[in-house]
């Protein structure tokens, strides 16, 4: 008994703003916009480093970070973040996304006792996952306390210069 292989025929790149871009597989060096195909090429050479050739112009490119299927790309000095999904994973996202949507509160606590050096966010500020919220000095080292989810800051419970104990609440975030 040999199972059928679910072949992946296309991929989707979803931007952080929720824009969806579709690419058929195998991936060609072509981008289709408004029904027209344009050639695009990723190149690397000594003079320019990694760059994209698009409409006879070179654009600098940098791959800032990749994590799982999440790609942070610097194209022409502008940062873009995409998750790349297969039809199955996209479907799963839709299923799991249903019944959610209500925001929950993320309480960021001090991981260890120390002194707050700087508070980097204000109330009502939008934060992204991984964004530094406060800088906590402990063991004579400055630690960035990062948000483990994106959302809006509801409350900032500490100020610069303050000493905190382990598990003291630093920031509260309404998770999106």
């Amino acid at each position: 008994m040999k199972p059928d292989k679910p072949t992946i025929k296309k991929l989707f790149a979803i931007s952080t703003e929720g824009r969806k871009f579709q690419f058929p597989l195998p991936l060609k060096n072509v981008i289709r916009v408004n029904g027209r195909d344009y050639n695009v090429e990723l190149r690397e050479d000594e003079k320019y480093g990694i760059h994209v050739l698009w409409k006879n112009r070179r654009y600098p490119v940098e791959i800032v970070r990749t994590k799982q299927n999440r790609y942070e790309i610097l194209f022409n000095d502008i940062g873009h973040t995409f998750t790349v999904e297969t039809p199955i994973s996209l479907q799963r996202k839709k299923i799991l996304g249903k019944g959610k949507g209500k925001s929950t509160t993320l309480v960021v606590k001090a991981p260890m006792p120390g002194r707050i050096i700087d508070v980097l966010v204000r109330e009502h500020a939008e934060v992204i996952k991984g964004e530094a919220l406060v800088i906590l000095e402990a063991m004579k080292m400055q630690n960035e306390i990062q948000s483990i989810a994106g959302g809006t800051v509801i409350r900032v419970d500490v100020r610069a210069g303050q000493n905190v104990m382990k598990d003291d609440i630093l920031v509260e975030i309404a998770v999106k």
Partner: protein
Amino acid sequence: MDINGKYFRSFLEREEAFKKQYSADRLKKQHSKGKLTAHERIALLFDDGTFEEIDAFVTPSDQGVDFGKVEHAYGDGVVTGHGKIDGRLVFAFAQDFTIMGGSLGIVHARKIAKVQEMALKMGAPFIGINDSGGARIQEGIASLNGYAVIFNNIIQSSGIIPQISVIMGPAAGGAVYAPALTDWVFMTSHTSYMFVTGPNVVREVLNEEISSEDLGGAEVHARKSGVANMIYDDEENTIIALKKFLSYLPSNNLENPPVVSFPNDTPDFNPKLRDIVPDDPNKAYDVRDIINLIVDRNSFFETSELFAPNIITGFGRMEGRTVGIVANQPKVLAGVLDIDSSTKGARFIRFCDAFNIPILTLEDVPGFLPGKDQEHSGIIRHGAKLLFAYAEATVPRITVILRKAYGGAYIVMNSKGMGGDFNYAWPSAEIAVMGPDGAVAILYRRELAEAKDPAALKKELVKKYREKVANPFIADEKGYIDEVIDPAMTRGKLLSAFSALSNKSVKVPSRKHGNMPL
């Protein structure tokens, strides 16, 4: 044979019945939960058309069933077999939640045990995809014994073949120990959970309300318990990552890890490495930035990323060859060693040692985390694990001291005396019994108390301490460091060092096993 004859027809009928068993309804039910079926998972995992299923037509045992009903389905809720991943033989099972909730009965257990034993005989990696309601209540003690056999098999194979568990659904009760005993646990977020006692029992016994996700979801196990090593957002990414992960590992403990020919574009001399460690010893940086410039481009695979992030562990390749990396992470808690980071590091090192993977240690550690919490929870006992794991490892071991290397933490992180083969230091290294502030405060307590301007004197003394004691040159001159190197040439140095050590073989005293502090 006559393909229209009786025998062949009954063969075809069975095939037909098997296909029917996986009706659209069953698939839909599984898909509607955002999950794939056992066969789909297997298909994603193995190279196209290479998977051979065994025991597809077995049916559940009737033994001892006089309570409840058992569905007489082909396969008894588990798919087992072998196939190729990146061209290499791998044995696997995948539990099928669509049949009796993937519950484990005696036949189900026997099927798994069979492929486990085959994997051990062939010296091939073993992967288990878990999606099961647990022991089959109807089958009682037979089912429990089935688990015992599976556990025992895992333990007998441990350290001989890599064993990896993938959790893609529930794993509750005793069943959780199967994954726990394997080398690595992958979990898919939101649709999998593991716990010894579920939310219902917690509610009854402790009167506490908690969801399955909060009690034993992927996130919890990846961050807090450390049970899950790698977690991913969906099943496809889990499997894609698993395949990638497998490419770092040898098939068994006698082989070396596979070699992956690499695009030869990672510079052996990279001045960028000089910029990462800040001059200010109190400033943090991300040690992964260093790792990524040392290993072949894009080859670093971080393991247990979310658990004890103050130590980084993971695999990378250097000129195509797998290297296990252990690095203090100054970005988190200053890279301090605590209970969790010690056990995380120790387990990683032992895996590398078992499977002939050389270990690279990047050191920037201020010490052990002080405090009642740590001391009372046994940092002495747990810290000792890291020491034990390092000293016990016979694979090539290299350390690069990036910055701080103080006190006990210096000793632990694969120091020369612990058997480090090559110990390098960057010029920014500070090696001493303790940090400058502490040392000055102890040695010059009286002078500081009597000084007119204690702050100025302290500054002076700290400067002197750095000059006279806390620097890599003293250690170099005394032979505790093999060489102080320019950060830019780290990769080049390591390549030639690992190459020189590739034939390392150590005579280990014969014994049953050491007594590691557990």
